[in-house]
């Protein structure tokens, strides 16, 4: 008798384990769909490569590279007399016009780009999902307020707005990430998420959650928002692309208060006049520009591949 009435820990365990197994299975299935798209895998490969580069920089600085020579801001190699110097075994990508190692700068900046991209994307997604879900759930004046706001932000040229803002706010990486996150969170993304939330709102499980006694807050944040997550993940990828691009463009204009980034590297090359001296100086011209392009492309490609996972209508077959 006791065996029936007493709570059975292993039964609860098995439910949890079953859930885990289910989500693992889901993950595998999604991975299968994702990996069908070779272009998406290419993007993932590029991102992993850059993540390794970013992770390797502090390790290299602490072991092989002497900080005096390889520091990305103030490094200078006494053995190199003429700067910029072409690639050699000591400096795999040469040195910039001020004698700093290009590869070290490139690797150091990579981490910043990742931090900026993910911070901006996270803020965007958190804002856009909650605002979109709230607007869809409540409708009425809240909906029209947010939608008009999204329209307003949508007509603004992003870069132009950032140029104007940077004239008055001291823009560093964190401020830029927050501004970008807020702008794209309240902008076009809200409209996308609201449209999605509207289709979720009429699903039967929302009804049953309400019947079971869930209040509005519970329904919005425990039932609607989690179901927006696939779309959110997809949109994160596109936001990362936008953030990296915006950072580089502002740095290129010299409007950003950052010590080193890919944009700054291009800015330095151009300001020192090596941009139009022909491909002889490829080690100054190509690495930073190609890195921005590759990383942006990689996130974009992953976004597209995820699109076909999230949106079944796009699948091949």
């Amino acid at each position: 008798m006791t065996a029936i009435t007493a709570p059975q820990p292993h039964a609860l365990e098995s439910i949890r384990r079953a859930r885990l197994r289910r989500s693992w299975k889901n993950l595998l299935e999604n991975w299968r769909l994702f990996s069908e798209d070779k272009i998406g895998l290419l993007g993932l490969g590029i991102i992993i490569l850059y993540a390794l580069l970013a992770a390797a920089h502090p390790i290299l600085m602490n072991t092989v590279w002497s900080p005096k020579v390889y520091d990305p801001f103030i490094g200078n190699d006494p053995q190199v007399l003429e700067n910029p110097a072409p690639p050699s075994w000591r400096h795999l990508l040469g040195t910039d016009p001020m004698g700093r190692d290009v590869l070290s700068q490139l690797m150091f900046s990579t981490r910043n780009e990742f931090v900026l991209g993910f911070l901006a994307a996270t803020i965007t997604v958190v804002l856009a999902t909650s605002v979109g879900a709230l607007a869809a759930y409540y409708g009425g004046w809240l909906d029209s307020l947010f939608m008009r706001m999204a329209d307003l932000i949508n007509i603004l040229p992003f870069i132009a707005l950032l140029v104007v803002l940077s004239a008055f706010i001291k823009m560093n990486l964190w401020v830029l990430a927050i501004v970008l996150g807020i702008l794209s969170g309240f902008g076009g993304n809200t409209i996308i998420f609201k449209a999605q939330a509207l289709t979720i709102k009429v699903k039967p499980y929302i009804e049953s959650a309400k019947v079971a006694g869930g209040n509005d807050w519970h329904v919005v944040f425990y039932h609607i928002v989690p179901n927006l997550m696939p779309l959110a993940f997809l949109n994160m990828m596109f936001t990362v692309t936008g953030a990296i691009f915006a950072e580089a463009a502002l740095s290129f204009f010299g409007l950003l208060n950052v010590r080193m980034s890919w944009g700054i590297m291009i800015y330095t090359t151009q300001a020192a006049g090596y941009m139009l001296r022909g491909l002889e100086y490829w080690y100054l011209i190509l690495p930073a520009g190609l890195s921005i392009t590759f990383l942006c492309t990689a996130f974009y490609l992953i976004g597209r591949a995820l699109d076909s996972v999230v949106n079944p209508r796009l699948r091949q077959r």
Partner: protein
Amino acid sequence: MWKYILRRSVQIVVTLVLYLAITYFLLDAQPGDMTLQYMNPRFTETQRQALRIRLGLDRPVTERFVMWIGNMLRGELGDSFSESKPVIDIIKERAPRTVFLFLTAALTTFFVGYYLGRLLAWKRGTKSEYIITVFGAVMYSIFTPWFALLMVLLFGYTLKWFPLGKFLNPVIWRGLPLDISANLIFNRLMLTALLVALAMLAVFLLVRRFAPGHTRRILPGVACIAVILAALAWVIYPYAHLAGDILHHLVLPVLTLTLVNFSGTMLLTRTTMLETLREDYIMAARAKGLPEKTVRDRHAARNTMLPVFSNFIIGLPFIFAGGIITETVFSWPGMGLTLLQAATTNDIPLIMGTWLFIGILSLTAHLVADIAYVFIDPRIRYA
């Protein structure tokens, strides 16, 4: 239809005022004002206060904003701090250059993207689709300033096909009569383009009204005739070589902007077209035994047009943002470059003026798009 346009225009005015208000208050919320920035630092506090009162800076910000709006409606935007010229003159001088660059680039972007996207959806699964998609994705996210510089390096510096920057070659323009200015030639160029476009639109409407179904046969011929006529008119004009000079300078920026922007339209066209191809009416069209080309161009592509077009219009500000970068790299003296200069010198009247221009440009684009929907999609009727 007219009622709809009227209602949209009212909405646009409200949006514009809101948009200007936000910018104005944001700029005003920054610490310091022009008495600190552009005046002699040895001014005493009392002198500064007197100046503030004379300039009206002591009044509440809402009152100043209303005054600014009033002045704007009378066409007075104040004097630029950094250039000591009325802002309205600067805008009048430079806006046509930006509009021309922007419109040319937007048109080429749309058509290149649309045609390539159509092709891509049709060639699904082939090697060329794969290559064009990757190329498109790379161009979509390529770092624009860097790419523009590479274009200059390749076409301007190495091949020497196009000039390195600026929008005219001063050597050719020396020793001209005083009444021939760059802007005069430029405005005439714009006028020609506008007339050609209007003529084509009129012919299109007439053909659609009186001989529907023949648009595809008649329109290309009419376009050729209009372009040839315009070219003839310019050849007779004695300063045609000056116009040629400006156009020569225009090629590289437009090429860059097109290459950077076309892929957004292209990839969207592909996705939309793939969805359209699953519709029943495509199967019906094929079952009728229509040639594949007809199915593609008249059944699938026409229905793809609407979402692509609306997305393109929403993306117009981004093309303009790309225009800022392009104008900077090519030293094209338009509004984008002006905005950047105004922002770096904290020139508030010029920033507000440029900003007003950008707002009007993108809002007008939206209005034009809404009206153009009616022509693209006959199912839409504005009541």
